[in-house]
């Protein structure tokens, strides 16, 4: 047994390595600052001392290399974070997107100097249209939530436009229906577009309660936001019925594409009846999560929403590729970013799509689903309780630890923290909100069976620990750079800025 004798020190903050008199860089031009300042009006110049860290280059490299090692990541750990699709981010997507021709292009460069990147964007638009069965794709939203915003804004623009054309016939549509299991961005988005949110319950099979829906729909209904498969990890079987109900009432269907990985090449959202969708390229198309972003959330629309798509998009004619802007699309909801969104991320998704091809896309859904169902089955065999044991898992599934919580007093969070000790990133915890003590587990297609098996054994081992020495869970983690952190203190005694108390 090893003895832990040396208390690991907290990593110093970069500011603590700083000395304002240090000048150790070849990274800035050599220039007399005061000379240049003579060109700036005295009263508009900075008076307050700037306190950026002054640290040697080696020390900076060392600080951040060491910090990086404190992260779990796909490249180092199994990361079955439900709803997040933490699969392998092929490195070639990074190296090729970083080619100088791509990184050095100014967004306003003349289109004669932009045909390369524009052709990539055009092709990507088409591949995404094809894969989702939508009529037009706009790549500009910068993450899923912005895609949602664009989608709901288009639904609103559509209704507003209709009302303008037929002020008497069109009702005042003010409500968006959202399932109770929906991701938090859905209701938040609906509100940003000025809608009221109606929550629709889920039945014990994980399906939408059709009776409740029936009652909720009316002339005030602007639309419904759904993920399918849902965040409960099951496919909404009545989707066609739901689509008909909503459409009949004059509403539109929004598809939250966060779970597209489960059905790529299997079903197209367009065929299910959706009018507008977003895709999380940082999930299904494996662009990096980067510790919280950047993402990319292109939207796709059916014919009736085509006039409203956010600009710019890329078109092609005999002269080559060109920008389609509000000039050609006067009804567009407008722009969502200064240019066309996260192009560097879109390039990575494009490269990924080229590598996979249509054959590879189908494989994604196949193996994501195989892994999820296998893991579900293995865990059931090991007597873990599933939220929907009768259902096929999609790319993910929900396990509930309420039994363990009751019997051993160990919560899902305790299990999660103990998993970290064993070198596994925890699944998503306490989401969706309606299942108690839950884990939303998404293994993704790029994990091997051996790793899934090892994960099952670890969960069994932890449950044994819960029974025999529950404090091993409650006090976990033990093996990480820090023990369990005090969230309450973090929120009560806000410390968000090293300099705040000091300036």
């Amino acid at each position, binding site marked *: 047994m090893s003895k832990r004798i040396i208390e690991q020190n907290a990593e110093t*903050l970069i500011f603590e390595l700083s000395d304002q008199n240090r000048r150790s860089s070849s990274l800035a031009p050599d220039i007399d600052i005061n000379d240049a300042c003579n060109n700036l009006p005295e009263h508009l110049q900075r008076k307050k001392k700037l306190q950026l860290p002054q640290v040697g280059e080696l020390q900076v490299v060392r600080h951040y*290399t060491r910090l990086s090692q404190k992260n779990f990541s796909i490249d180092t750990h199994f990361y079955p974070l439900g709803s997040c699709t933490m699969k392998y981010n092929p490195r070639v997507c990074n190296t090729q997107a970083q080619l100088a021709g791509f990184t050095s292009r100014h967004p306003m460069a003349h289109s004669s100097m932009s045909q390369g990147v524009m052709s990539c964007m055009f092709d990507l638009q088409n591949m995404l249209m094809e894969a989702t069965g939508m009529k037009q794709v706009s790549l500009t939203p910068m993450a899923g939530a912005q895609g949602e915003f664009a989608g709901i804004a288009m639904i609103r623009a559509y209704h507003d436009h209709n009302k303008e054309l037929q002020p008497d016939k069109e009702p005042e549509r003010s409500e968006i229906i959202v399932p109770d299991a929906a991701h*938090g961005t859905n209701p938040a988005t609906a509100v940003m577009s000025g809608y009221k949110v109606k929550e629709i319950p889920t039945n014990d099979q994980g399906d939408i309660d059709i009776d409740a829906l029936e009652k909720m729909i009316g002339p005030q209904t602007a639309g419904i936001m759904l993920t399918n498969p849902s965040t409960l990890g099951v496919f909404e079987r009545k989707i066609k019925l739901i689509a008909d109900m909503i459409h009949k009432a004059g509403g539109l269907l929004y598809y939250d594409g966060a779970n597209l990985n489960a059905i790529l090449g299997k079903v197209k959202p367009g065929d299910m009846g959706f009018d507008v969708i977003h895709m999380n390229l940082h999930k299904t198309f494996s662009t990096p999560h980067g510790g919280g*972003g950047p993402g990319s959330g292109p939207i796709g629309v059916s014919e009736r929403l085509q006039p409203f798509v956010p600009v710019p998009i890329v078109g092609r004619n005999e002269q080559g590729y060109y920008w389609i802007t509000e000039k050609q699309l006067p009804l567009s909801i407008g722009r969502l970013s200064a240019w066309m969104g996260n192009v560097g991320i879109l390039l990575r998704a494009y490269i990924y799509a080229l590598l996979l091809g249509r054959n590879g896309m189908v494989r994604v859904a196949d193996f994501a689903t195989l892994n999820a169902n296998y893991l579900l089955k293995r865990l059931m065999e090991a007597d873990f309780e599933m939220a929907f044991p009768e259902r096929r898992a999609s790319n993910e599934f929900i396990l509930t630890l309420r039994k363990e919580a009751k019997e051993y007093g160990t919560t899902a969070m305790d299990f999660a923290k103990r998993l970290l000790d064993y070198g596994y990133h925890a699944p998503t915890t306490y989401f969706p909100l309606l299942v108690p003590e839950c884990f939303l587990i998404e293994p993704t297609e790029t994990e091997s069976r051996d790793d899934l098996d090892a994960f099952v054994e670890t969960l069994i081992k932890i449950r044994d620990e819960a029974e025999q020495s529950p404090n091993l869970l409650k006090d976990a983690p033990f093996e990480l*750079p820090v023990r369990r952190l005090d969230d309450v203190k973090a929120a009560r005694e806000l410390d968000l800025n090293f300099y705040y108390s000091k300036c």
Partner: protein
Amino acid sequence: MPYIPHTPNEVEEMLRVIGAESIDDLFDEIPQELRIDLEKSTGLNPIPLGKSEMAVQRQLSEKAMLDGTPLCFAGGGAYEHHIPAALWELATRGEFYSAYTPYQAEASQGTLQVIYEFQSMIANLTAMDVSNASLYDGASGLAEAVLMAVRANRKAKSKRILMPESVSPVYRQVVETIVKNQGITLELIAIDQTTGTINREHAQQQLHNDAAFAALVIPQPNYFGSLEEVHQLTDWAYKQGALVIAQVNPTALALLAAPGNWGENGADIAVGEAQPLGIPLSSGGPYIGFIACKQKLVRQLPGRIVGRTVDLDDKPGFTLTLQAREQHIRRSKATSNICTNQGLLATAVTLYLSFLGTDGLQKVAASCVANTQKLIALLEKSPEIKFPFGKTVFHEFVVQLDVSVDSVLERLAEEDIVGGINLSQQQVASQSVDANKNQLLICVTETKTEEELRFFSETLIAICSEISSLSNSEGELS
């Protein structure tokens, strides 16, 4: 099967455990009529088959080559700066690159500490109290700042925002798209035609329509590169009971007064695009919006925030905090719907500011100023080139030509130069900019050498007279 590690044997065994005959069976809950028939033309046929890494690499290299690496004098919100070579080598380390949002704090101390440092640096740069962990970009960040100001300014109870035309037209457009459905209106303020800065009289006039407004947006430097009178404007807005949103270029803040120090009270919210701090131009994204504010507004901030706390052993550590503002907790009552932000770019910015430090950033800014003045001096030599808004600028300025800017840019492109931004051709032409004025927005940063400045000025002048003599001779002919 690229990226799929399963062997045929394993697949078989896994199916046996599941109790399914085939992988296809796992999709049996999906109504058959919805399933894609891969044989049919409605399948996925237009998507090509998968390619080898080698083939894809070649394809992409050719596309990248096509766009080249021109000499760039365009800015307008996207700036070319030198990026330390170590920066992206560190930022793309797998542990940063392939981690998720730091939900499990104990397993994400790397990212969390980086973001805490990022927040501290942004707050220090803007002289504000607190910063969040990033927003999508400068434009959508300004929209979030507007929403935040409306929420925060309870006194004003107004949904009006004063928006000068010296704010980037694209930014204004994005703000409009994002805030309009919440009943917020943007009241434009014209610019002074001799300075390119906010026309304060016009601002004063706006007050007559309706006494209250929630906030005034002040850009610094503004879209035309000119410097606004930030202290007077801030004090004026305060007197009207409005909040001040500072929309700033972070490089410029190394030398220009920080929003927290504008006027008597300082701006309330500082927002902007952090792309100049270590992010390549890359066609406009991914970039990174930053937002910082006074302590008292912290609960109105959108997006993620990292706080320092302690662990069970009282050792310092970092965690996401104030999550009750966010969509995953507060749902329809959240401060914003933002979830995924621009984490990796925040890492890059943190690295950039650490590598450069105060001294380095000041030198970069000073070099921008110096090089810009050098180019102005070179262009001044040509009587055909005018400077409608003067020359008191940071690193951008407007020139007025006597020929069509479009033709000039096209000719410059043939010389492999991105010559600037055609102000008359902006997607939404600013009311203040007359399409007939032939105005070109030029940016110069520390990346340009003396020879490049000379080359550009000579080429620009030559092209201008070439075009003008051509059109003159055409005139003569007709």
